[in-house]
């Protein structure tokens, strides 16, 4: 099992550009999550999904969009990049949301200049 994979590992964007952060898991987990981690801060939940076709907002969803067309994939879209979106983005998945652990990907480091 590859677990949770994320691409790219690093990316530099200009203000106003768009990009999609990819996330995939091969554990057949229904629940998937996107977090951002700012320096010296804990993780903040951006969006989550409870299964294919079902997504919902987390704590900090503004400026982002998600889709979940398959169980395996959960891409995160930035439409108009802003410097405030400079962060490390982590994708995670779990079998059940409350009692199960979350499995995290290695992260994508995004810089918006």
């Amino acid at each position, binding site marked *: 099992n590859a677990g949770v994979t994320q691409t790219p590992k690093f990316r530099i964007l200009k203000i106003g550009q768009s990009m999609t952060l990819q996330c995939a898991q091969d554990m057949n987990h229904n629940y998937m999550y996107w977090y951002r981690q700012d320096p*010296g*801060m*804990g993780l903040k939940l951006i969006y989550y999904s409870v299964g294919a076709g079902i997504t*919902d907002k987390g704590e900090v969803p503004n400026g982002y969009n998600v889709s979940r067309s398959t169980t395996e994939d959960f891409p995160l879209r930035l439409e108009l990049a802003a410097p405030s979106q400079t962060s490390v983005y*982590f994708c*995670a998945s779990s079998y059940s949301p*409350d009692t199960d652990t*979350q499995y995290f*990907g290695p*992260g994508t480091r995004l810089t918006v200049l």
Partner: protein
Amino acid sequence: AQSVAQPEDQVNVAEGNPLTVKCTYSVSGNPYLFWYVQYPNRGLQFLLKYITGDNLVKGSYGFEAEFNKSQTSFHLKKPSALVSDSALYFCAVSDVYNFNKFYFGSGTKLNVKP
């Protein structure tokens, strides 16, 4: 609102000594509590969790945590620290009204010196 606080940005301990990383929470109802560890340039890894039952929870790599409802705390402990335990530790709580929402503390950097 649910929240988690880790009052120490950094904890320094000598190898072989016991370590404690503190976590307090503010939630209504009965929380589910978690500890995760993050090594440099890596994603978070699960250490242990408290769901219900015994207040002392044992986890990976010799770590344990004690759930104290009256003090709303969930401190992470290890009897004898290793240099390899040096990492960033995060406490997290799941929203009791929506278990899909997790709230993480700001993290505590543990430095274990030889």
